């Protein structure tokens, strides 16, 4: 689903008196995969959540195809970090995937038969066929990640936001995640991820947004994943460069 350029224009986030980030601007074409990187406290997770509308924008705007992203919120899929989900809640994997259909079902109506079939298909694509009836806490960390990806898929998103997607998952789950990101990008969906995994961003992302309390650099990965820019982003806090 091609929806036009994704743009961040003069965005500021944080409390009103002390912005954690201010004057952040960048623009990418549909199908881009943007990595938000930076040291702890650099504001990458805050920026991702502000783009998602979870935290308020103190200034500026986020647009997709020239229209405010907030006005197209139904098309924004968010894959949260583990800590943000209530794992004790009595839902099965299938229930979680179906949540991706809630917005389109609308108020007062539940997802129907077609939605359930899509949920089952998405679970199958994520390699979890036939496991939809299990409680969400009965899966491994990597499998849970795949359930949330399935939920993002059925939401038919224009923008997918991933918060630290590579944390604590093994090789097999990494591969599934890579395939999902590639398929999103191929169909014109813009993907943004906040991550501290530099090895992953260098191969997965088309663009990098380097943050350290400010926008240090933004551009195609080939131009921004350089020792000079990484050193500026991470200061003395990164030991290994090659």
């Amino acid at each position, binding site marked *: 689903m091609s929806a036009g350029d994704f743009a961040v224009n003069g965005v500021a986030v944080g409390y009103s008196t002390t912005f954690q980030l201010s004057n952040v601007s960048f623009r990418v074409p549909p199908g881009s995969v943007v990595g938000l990187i930076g040291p702890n406290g650099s504001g990458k997770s805050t920026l991702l959540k502000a783009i998602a*509308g979870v935290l308020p924008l103190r200034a500026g705007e986020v647009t997709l195809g020239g229209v405010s992203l907030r006005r197209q919120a139904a098309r924004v*899929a968010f894959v949260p970090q583990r800590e943000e*989900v*209530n794992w*004790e*809640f*009595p839902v099965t994997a299938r229930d979680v995937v179906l949540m991706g259909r*809630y*917005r389109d079902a609308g108020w007062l109506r539940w997802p129907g038969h077609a939605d359930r079939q899509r949920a089952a298909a998405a679970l199958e694509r994520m390699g979890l066929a036939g496991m939809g009836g299990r409680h969400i806490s009965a899966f491994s960390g990597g499998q849970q990640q795949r359930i949330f990806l399935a939920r993002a898929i059925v939401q038919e998103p224009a923008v997918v936001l991933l918060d630290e997607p590579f944390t604590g998952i093994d090789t097999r789950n990494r591969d599934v995640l890579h395939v999902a990101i590639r398929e999103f990008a191929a169909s014109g969906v813009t993907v943004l991820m906040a991550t501290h995994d530099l090895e992953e961003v260098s191969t997965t992302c088309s663009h990098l947004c380097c943050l350290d309390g400010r926008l240090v650099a933004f551009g195609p990965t080939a131009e921004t994943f350089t020792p000079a820019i990484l050193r500026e982003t991470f200061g003395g806090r990164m030991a290994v460069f090659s």
Partner: protein
Amino acid sequence: MIGYFTEPWSYPFMQRALMEVTIVGVLCGLVGCFVVLRGLAFIGDALAHAVFPGVVLSYLAGRSILIGAFVFGLFTAIGVGVLSRSRRVSEDSAIGVVFAAFFALGVVLISREAGFRKDLGSLLFGNVLGVSTGDVWVTLSIGAVVVLVLFALLKEFTLVAFDSTMARAAGYPVFLLDLALLLLVSTTIVASLQSVGNILILALIVTPPAAARLLTDRLGRMMALSVLLAVGSGVTGLFISYHANTAAGGTIVLTATAAFLVALVFAPDHGLLSHFLQSRRGRHHVHHNHTAAEHVEPQ
């Protein structure tokens, strides 16, 4: 023998009490599920205490206690909602301070009345045997509205309770949904005040769903079981209190507690007994591996 079971229900006051605890059981059983799943027990307790001055004022004015309770419940639910929005105030402390003060205000107000001890007792612990037919109708009407709203917003409440980050990203008005839930909890408390009173109402809201959660991993089944346990405890407690000549509210709560304890021990997957058996099996397993490893690599 049959008379032992049928006799209590031959009295009109027991029939009204039976209807009242059934309605309250359905209400608390359903709304309580979200109180338990969202970890709102403390806030629920605070709401119950905060409506007390409203109850007292209505009582002193000779009106139905529901009116004052409802007004105070409305304001406190909004108060809690706004308070929990500002991250810079320690929510717990603020709620603790404000609502203990509300409760104290209620106590002070009623202490000015002559013979207040008796009144205080029935306001704090409920008087289900004294409900009128009118009271039952009022509880039924309020309860019907609460259940209707709960089911109308069930999908959204579920999403916000499970993953509020996704709900916000997808554009749901999370603050208003939270406020709606608090209002439902507050209204449930108000509607249930007459049967178990101010102090014990929280037990009826929290205990049946907590027991139900131990018995199932599905929301729909949890809600059904929770209603079953709440209504069952209400009816059983009423029955026991008739024969044992004990206070109805307290007996109902203790019956619910007994049901919870049974679930805690015997629940198929989450129960203590099941965990104990699993860990014993687990220990055997580890033990075997350990000896096997020693066999392969003797040091």
